[in-house]
Each structure stands twice: as structure tokens, then as C-alpha cells.
């Protein structure tokens, strides 16, 4: 285990004019750690995720990422090309709506293969074999490899998006409501799959969700956001079993029991 974090975030803020997106967010993320960011819509969690993944530039604050050579690089000082390269190779981004993360009019195999080609793989047979392997890891039958994601169910599309993201062996994956909009039974299957992949691959992940059960199952650490600020953070089971902030208590007490 390394003693250095993978990502260091310090006093990150994003303002939209006078409106607060997120304000003064500070945390470190270590390799293999899954951090859940929870809060209701409008709490700033997606703004934070978009800033961290450099899809959005913050108004102030810093975030530095430990590159594969061990050097920390300041994310917002990289060139656009460097950031894109990071996004294509070392990072993944799983969108809530798979259509935002997939190319809907090319085959499932090509969706997975495309990321491999982006990192320089050129051998067709090898790319196809890797694609088949990844489709089976996300429980998509090999005979669907030439189908377009348009012909897939919501759960399958989401699993395909995960395969597309993980095929390059990223070290950090951002997930925005990865189980949102799926049936509960499909959610359970996806969560279990994600949990297994994250453990087996030793990924670090930042998962934005409004679903505390998802946070409990996937993450070791949690940040609770309200009105753009982090109101509570800590071990996931500590935050959920002994919530301290008024807003966290409200969230936890609002969970429906089945």
C-alpha cells in the first residue's frame, strides 16, 4: 500500500455568478478507496464531480493527481490535450444516462474497443478478444458483441458503459448516479458487479449518489453535501449509523424501511 494519496483536493469552489455550485471542498483520495458523495439534487455533488473530472473548471482551489510516474500534477494547469489523455487512459467516467457515455450507433464491441484503440492498441484480434472478455465480466453474452447499445436494455447499457470505462485499466473512476433510473433488481445486480470489479481491480472511485444504500454498499468513505458545502464526512458506516449533522440525520431518517 502506498502512503501517498492518488488525488488531493484543496478548498475547491465553483460559483455560477453569485450562485454557489460547491464551496471549499477539501479531501484526499487514496488508491483503492471508494468515496461516496451524497446529498439531494442541487446540493452541488454533480458540480463537484464535474470539477474533479475536469469537465468543468473550478472558480478557485486546487486538485492534484498522482500520475503513473509518481509525480503530482495540478489538474487545472494541464493542457487540454494532457487532460484528454488522462480521461482516456487513467480515468473513467460512468454517466447516469448510458447514452451520454456510449456511442449508441456503433456495436457493443466497438464501444469497448474504441477506448483500447485510444491508448494505442491496433491489433484487431486482440482488441476483439479483450472486448469479449470485458463483456463477459459485465455479464453481457458474447453473441451480443455486434449489436448496437440502442438494442440493449437500460441495465445492459449501463454494464456496457462500465466495461467501456474499465477496459483501459484506469486508476480512478468517477460515477454519477450509476444506478439511477434502473429497476431495483437490475440495480442490485449492477451494484454487486461494481463492488466486485472495484475490489478486484483495486480502483479508486468517486461515486455521486442520492441513494444511501448505494453509498453503504459501494463506499468506505462518505461526504454529505448540502447547498454546495460538505456538512459531514467520515467512514461510511459511521456517518450512516451515527449521523451528527442535522442534515445527515434528516437524510438517514428519511430512508424507507422495507
Amino acid at each position, binding site marked *: 500500500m502506498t502512503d501517498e494519496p492518488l488525488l488531493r483536493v484543496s478548498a475547491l469552489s465553483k460559483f455560477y455568478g453569485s450562485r454557489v455550485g460547491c464551496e471549499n471542498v477539501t479531501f484526499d483520495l487514496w488508491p483503492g478507496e471508494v468515496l461516496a458523495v451524497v446529498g439531494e439534487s442541487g446540493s452541488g455533488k454533480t458540480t463537484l464531480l464535474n470539477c474533479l473530472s475536469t469537465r468543468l473548471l473550478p472558480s478557485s482551489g486546487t486538485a492534484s493527481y498522482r500520475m503513473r510516474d509518481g509525480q503530482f500534477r495540478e489538474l487545472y494547469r494541464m493542457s487540454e490535450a494532457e487532460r484528454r489523455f488522462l480521461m482516456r487512459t487513467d480515468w473513467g467516467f460512468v454517466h447516469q444516462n448510458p447514452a451520454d457515455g456510449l456511442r449508441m450507433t456503433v456495436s457493443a464491441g466497438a464501444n469497448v474497443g474504441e477506448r483500447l484503440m485510444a491508448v494505442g492498441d491496433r491489433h484487431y484480434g486482440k482488441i476483439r478478444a479483450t472486448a469479449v472478455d470485458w463483456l463477459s465480466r459485465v455479464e453481457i453474452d458474447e453473441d451480443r458483441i455486434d449489436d448496437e447499445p440502442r438494442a440493449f436494455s437500460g441495465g445492459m447499457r449501463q454494464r456496457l458503459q462500465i466495461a467501456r470505462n474499465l477496459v483501459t485499466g484506469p486508476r480512478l473512476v468517477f460515477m454519477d448516479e450509476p444506478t439511477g433510473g434502473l429497476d431495483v433488481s437490475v440495480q*442490485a*445486480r449492477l451494484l454487486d458487479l461494481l463492488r466486485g470489479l472495484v475490489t478486484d481491480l483495486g480502483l479508486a472511485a468517486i461515486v455521486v449518489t442520492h441513494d444511501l444504500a448505494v453509498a453503504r454498499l459501494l463506499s468506505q468513505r462518505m461526504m454529505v453535501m448540502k447547498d454546495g458545502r460538505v456538512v459531514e464526512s467520515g467512514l461510511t458506516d*459511521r456517518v450512516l449509523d451515527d449521523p451528527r449533522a442535522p442534515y445527515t440525520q434528516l437524510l438517514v431518517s428519511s430512508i424507507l424501511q422495507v
Partner: protein
Amino acid sequence: MPTPLVVSDVAKSFTMHLRDGIKLPVVAGVSFSIRSGECTVLGGPSGAGKSSILKMLYGNYAVDEGQIIVQHEDGLIDLATASPRTVLAVRRLTIGYVSQFLRTVPRVSALDVVAEPLVERGEDREVARSKARALLAQLNLPEKLWMLPPATFSGGEQQRVNIARGFITEHPILLLDEPTASLDARNRDVVIALIAAKKAAGVALLGIFHDHDVREAVADRLIDVTAFAAGKIAA
């Protein structure tokens, strides 16, 4: 005898912000230590704060005041103020915990639920599974259940999976929250034997046992939690 865990002047209360900020004191002035090779038992009526104390020692409940010093790797750590990352490392390597109820994960088999803490410590998956099989057999869990997720198991079956999961590793400290509550006599005896084996291996155990016979069989020392009643100290 080494004391790998020392609790001093720990206090805990819950503030209910949704109920006009009422403060519910739980315990205060909690001070004790546990020793390697012994089983210390927390005693006292329901609601005295026994489970809350165990949960603080595992980092599952926050601590308002005081220190919980634990010997972790080659140093001492105060769990009351440790970072989440440190608490996770302590859980992986130093403090094991058998909770009252098993929290099940969809689609993960009983065998893998039991093997998981060993795998997290870096053990080979197959070695971990074979140890898990041995423990589940010792706890008389029917073999046909091993590959099934425990969500549909009976209370006693889930509890045995939970016990196996807690006992499979060689954590130097083991916390037990009523591990025998829903077990029949035969399996209670198995748990008593497992606890005896842990003691012999030099593990420091701290437990809550409502079952009188089990307590008699395993306890080396009894700590009466009513002495830490929050009202008493505050008054």
C-alpha cells in the same frame, strides 16, 4: 499481560437535531482496558450502553470525549480521533468485530462473505475459501447453503455465517456483540470452543453475552457498564 486496548474517560451522547436538539446521554467516564489471552465481558441491562461502547471501539460510532488507545502494527493509535483511513487499517489488521446482525450483500455467497476479511488482508482467495469451509463446517452450517447468498437464511444460520466471518482472521483484538443470541445449545458450545481457542492464541476479546451459561463459560473479567451511566457522572 499485554493490554492492546485502553479506553480512558470516553463519553458518548446522541444529539437529535430533528427533535429540537434533545441530547441523549449514553455513557460517560468509560475507562477500562482489555488484556491479551482474556475474554472481558461488558455487563449491565439493555440500554446501559454496552453496544454503543463496542461500536465506538470499532469506529462505527463517533466519540465525544476521551481516548481509545489501540496497539496497531508497531505504534499506538487513538481511535477517537483517527482518520477514516486509519480506522479502516485498524479494522483490517487489528480489531475484528462480530456484529449482532449480518448485513448481507446481494448475490455474494455465504462462503465468500466468510472468506472476505482474509482476502482483504491479502490472503489467496482459495486458501481463504478453504478456511471458510472448515469454519462453516465446524459451526454446523449445512454444506448445501455455502454457495448461496445468506439473505434468505434463518436468523441462526446468518449468525453462524457472521461468527465464521469474525473468527476467520487472526486479529489480535476481537469484539463480540451477542454472538450466541440466536443459536441452539450445540452451536453455542461451538462458539464457546472458538472463543477458548482465540484466548489460547493470545487474542484479547471483549464481548456482550446475554446468555448466562455462555458468559460463565467464557468470561475472565466482568465490567459493569452501569458504572458509566452518563447521568451519574454529569450529576
